[in-house]
């Protein structure tokens, strides 16, 4: 049977790639250390597959057709289209159709209604953290893209439920695979809104505190309020909520948090505690 070997989260932001050379040395050092520590842990977990929870930054989906949640079940996925991500490798990105299909079927059998895709393009949301983890070899990727840009969106309550579903789907997969989960996005940031560039450190710290303690009800309240006060980028914390649900709400270890106005993002890095 497959085994869930690690659950992680890391923020992303296009400027971390596009403007890297222009960022202050201290910020670069701290971001590198945080991504590096996460990469070390992911490597140690020896995952065969990473289930990547990410937003779609208007890459695959548009107002023509906008799924709330879409599972990538293809043999491969397209690499990032952004010019500042052109060095991402491997491109195309190998997928895992068998695990992807199993998650899809398990979801539908349990009254969840995901969309499916045989070929997603993975934008900087997932690929920036993946590249910064600097893994010796990239595991196969099963992407799960969640609509976090255009309201209305999945409720946070439902995101926790999706996490539980994901845990059960991985546990019931018949092959002896080692599977990790990587959530990307958040914390506070604001894009294309009047408070663009602002970071709400108070929100971020309350949010991280609730994740650390594993409390779901206060977390839902904090997260639902977040988009109004802490920017539209906080919608991406849905990925963290799914990861949290997959870890049975056991809480996480915060590896680092740095409000980084230079890249417009409250950047956080975490690894969840797994069942003993």
């Amino acid at each position, binding site marked *: 049977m497959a085994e869930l070997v690690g659950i992680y989260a890391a923020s992303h932001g296009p400027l971390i790639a596009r403007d890297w050379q222009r960022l202050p040395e201290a910020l670069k050092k701290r971001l590198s250390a945080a991504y590096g520590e996460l990469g070390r842990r992911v490597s140690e977990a020896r995952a065969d597959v990473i289930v990547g929870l990410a937003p779609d*930054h208007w890459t695959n989906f548009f107002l023509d057709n906008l799924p709330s949640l879409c599972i990538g079940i293809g043999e491969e996925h397209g690499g990032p289209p952004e010019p500042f991500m052109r060095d991402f490798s491997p491109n195309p990105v190998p997928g895992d159709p068998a695990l992807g299909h199993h998650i899809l079927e398990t979801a539908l059998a349990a009254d969840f209604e995901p969309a499916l895709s045989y070929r997603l393009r993975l934008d900087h949301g997932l690929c920036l953290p993946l590249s910064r983890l600097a893994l010796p070899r990239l595991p196969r990727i099963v992407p799960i893209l969640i609509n976090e840009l255009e309201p209305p969106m999945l409720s946070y309550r439902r995101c926790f439920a999706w996490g539980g579903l994901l845990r059960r789907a991985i546990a019931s997969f018949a092959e002896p695979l080692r599977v990790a989960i990587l959530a990307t996005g958040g914390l506070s940031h604001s894009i*294309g809104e009047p408070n663009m560039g602002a970071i709400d450190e108070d929100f971020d710290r309350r949010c991280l505190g609730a994740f650390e303690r594993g409390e779901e009800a206060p977390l839902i309240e904090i997260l639902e309020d977040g988009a109004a006060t802490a920017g539209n980028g906080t919608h991406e914390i849905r990925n963290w909520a799914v990861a949290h649900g997959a870890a049975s709400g056991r809480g996480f270890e915060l590896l680092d948090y740095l409000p980084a106005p230079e890249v417009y993002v409250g950047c956080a890095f975490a690894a969840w505690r797994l069942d003993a």
Partner: protein
Amino acid sequence: MPRMRDYWLSKLCFDLQDPARVAEYRRDRDAVLEHYPLKPEVRAAVLRDDVAALARLTNPYLLRYYFAASGMPDAEFIARLRAGALAHG
């Protein structure tokens, strides 16, 4: 009624993620706009780079892509968003 998006404005913003389309847009804005049946008032707002007016009509990420593609520096984009929010609440 929730705030609805203007489809063709949003489509223009979406399409300007493509660097080739951006180059074309910077060369000949009118020629590119021919492909989008924008309402006259929306087209006028596009032509005068009216950040605040367009912000009310499309997704904030798409708006950001559009103005980045059209060459407006972030600082100016943000200042215009704030001025618009102050004027309209």
